[in-house]
């Protein structure tokens, strides 16, 4: 049986970052399934995993989608030599529903459901006209709540989350201001953990034009960067695919959207000043 971990959380909460961090923390092969609605198939490309172990899918409701991509991918993963599967859900998926993949699909068992909550947006989301109920349900229904980008001053909000949603004794909120992957993995029996020199990962979204020169400067200033991948959009609205390994950095013209998003894997700390974010 392959343990399946479901990762929920609204758009931009940091699910991809969490997945990259889990992948960086181990050398064991982990399958990743990214289920969005096919609207922004970008996240899947920002997951730094062995290529054939990450699959993007666009599953909808079973009654209007008899070609069950997710089911087919789960079958595919059964034949791979992997230790665990991470299922990244769409921003509006409910943990209770997604957890059924772990508890229903033959060959899998459910490890746990994790909902990623982002500190800067959670207040607004919990009063949003359309998604407040969904985001609330994501928090209530998940086994583990992972707080992302919370500052220590957010104690008030955290204790509110605690008192309002932590009804179940077994549920736990990890409220580090950055991802505490080690802590997460130790608490999670279904995810492999090896205590080797730990790399961190982050997804950077840049909302202003940015060019090759700036990226190269950013890399020079931050020798801790191990890998960098993503898209940048310059002031002429050209989009470039950026790929940096330890030895070289390539830029190639890409037909992607005019959106700048980069995933960065690094040791210690990075300084984002040059990027203006």
């Amino acid at each position, binding site marked *: 049986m392959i343990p399946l971990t479901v990762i929920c959380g609204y*758009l931009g909460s940091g699910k991809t970052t969490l997945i990259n961090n889990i992948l960086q923390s181990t050398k064991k092969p982990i399958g990743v399934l990214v289920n969005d609605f*096919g609207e922004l198939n970008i996240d899947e490309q920002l997951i730094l995993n062995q290529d054939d172990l990450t699959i993007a899918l666009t599953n909808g409701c079973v009654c209007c989608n*008899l070609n069950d991509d997710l089911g087919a991918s789960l079958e595919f993963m059964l034949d791979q030599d992997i230790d665990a599967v991470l299922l990244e859900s769409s921003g509006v998926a409910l943990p209770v529903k997604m957890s059924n993949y772990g508890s*229903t699909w033959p060959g899998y068992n459910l490890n746990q459901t994790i909902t990623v909550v982002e500190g800067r947006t959670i207040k607004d989301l919990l009063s949003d006209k*359309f998604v407040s109920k969904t985001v609330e349900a994501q928090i209530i229904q998940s086994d583990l709540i992972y707080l992302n980008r919370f500052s220590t001053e957010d104690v008030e909000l955290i204790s509110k989350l605690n008192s309002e949603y932590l009804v179940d004794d077994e549920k736990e909120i990890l409220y580090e201001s950055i991802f505490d992957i080690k802590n997460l993995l130790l608490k999670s029996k279904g995810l492999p953990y090896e205590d080797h020199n730990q790399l961190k990962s982050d997804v950077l979204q840049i909302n202003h034009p940015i060019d090759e020169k700036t990226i190269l400067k950013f890399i020079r200033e931050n020798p801790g960067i191990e890998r960098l991948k993503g898209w940048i959009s310059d002031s002429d609205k050209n989009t470039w695919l950026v790929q940096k390994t330890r030895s070289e950095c390539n830029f190639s013209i890409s037909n992607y959207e005019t959106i700048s998003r980069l995933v960065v894997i690094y040791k210690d700390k990075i300084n984002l000043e040059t990027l203006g974010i």
Partner: protein
Amino acid sequence: MIEIFKAKSVITVNPSMPRAEAVAVRDGLILEAGTLETLQPWLVNNEYSINEQFKDSIIVPGLIDPHLHPSMAAVLLPTFFITAMEWKLPWGTTPATKTPEAYDEALKRACTNPTHKDLFITWGHQELWHGPISRDRINSIESRKPVIVWNRSFHELCMNDAALDYLDIKEEDVKNASQIDFVKGRFFELGLGFAIQKLNPFILDPEIFSNGLMKLKEVVHFGGQTTIADMAVGLFNFDNELNAQKLIYENEDTPFRVELVAHATAMTSLSGGGLEKGEELIASLHEHNSHHLKFGKRVKLFTDGAFFAQVAQLMEPGYIDGHQGEWLSTPKQFEEIARIYWNKGYAIHVHVTGDLGLELAIDTLEKLQFEKPRFNHGFTLEHFGLSTPEQVFRLSKLGANVSANAYYLYELSNIYANYSVGYERASSMARIGSCFREGVTTGLHSDFTMAPAQPLMSMWVAVNRINEKEEVMSPEERITPQQGLEAITINAARILGLDHEIGSIRSGKKADFTVLSQDPLTIDPIEIKDINIEATVFEGKIFDIN
């Protein structure tokens, strides 16, 4: 050569000349509607013939179903229908089966004939009427042949021992699965996904799928329709859907045209790029256009979950039992994607079922109107299950159209009043009268197989608002027979942006007619659904219905 179709009466749905006695047609186009006398100027110097086949009948504009799903229908039509409601199909009427005993009897009679290679699949089971289904129950009816019972809502199926064997589903594989009840043989939600994975070779078998599309051709003709819209091409597999439809429908025996509307997110995935690549791909689809099948500048988006499955998103106070609806798009991304198509001038069709799903569509339209005002833009709210009067007011002011599934009211209003949303909201589902009062262009669709592909049935529900328990639900929301006929002709044409060509009988439009035995505007409205459809005329050519 000019052909004059004489009728007892022609209902033109042209407000400037609502009635006529004859229509002159040449090369598939209407020259004029009028009387034999008023048509004379066309006839003096031209060869003509007078066709009296319909002289005792009523001619109305060819009926239009602006939203159904040929590929879903192609999967479903090869199955055997045993349903709580009556379904009229070209090959026979499926009677209403309303008790568990009647269900067992119907199943016993039916399952001697396989529907798919060696499998028998029946569709339409509803626990509320037919009692709980289980492996043992099917075994007791048919123990040797593989039998699969598929729920009316699509969200569950049940198999007998022989079917489990046949599909090689073993207890040890599925015994711990939370959404598979192996003992009872039931597969629901994700368990259903697993079962369908096993069934796909049968239900998506190209031969059976083509056969399903052929059957849909009969169904569409039988319902008196001369135009339908495939309101989400790309649902399963874009190329397969398009090619299969081309193969089956692109010939002179097909008595209707299909307006194709692409599924935006499916096309984004297919483009391999992002939202803008998806739009470019959709913009290029007109290259596939042929005589019967055409893409226009329109696109399909989704907000909330299915109405039949009770996953529509509701505003307060929500569902009686407190369960949550579902989003089919993340609201923020819905807005982003709608903006791209709005700014490029598309008519956007949005699947909305609950009032909160509708609210998202209306709020988005309001933002887009503020950013880039457009007129006669064709933004259309599809299904329109639950709504509020205030939403009807707003959508009217914003220039949106409504394409409603009135049949929800017929089949669901009683059970939804008792078990889902309460009487007040259930009685006003498909709030169509308000739409007409606010001047909203309002059409009716079947979303087949959510409702029968019979526009006269949809019209009957909207005019009478009678549900299957024969209660009248919110009579204030009824519309007149005239409005009902407009909803399945000219308004449906407007919703598809085809009103310059079809939807009424007037000089210059395509000669698409539906021929009825009775007058739908003067008959007792309660009989509208039972009006006999004698024939259709598609671009001047007669297609009889036996």
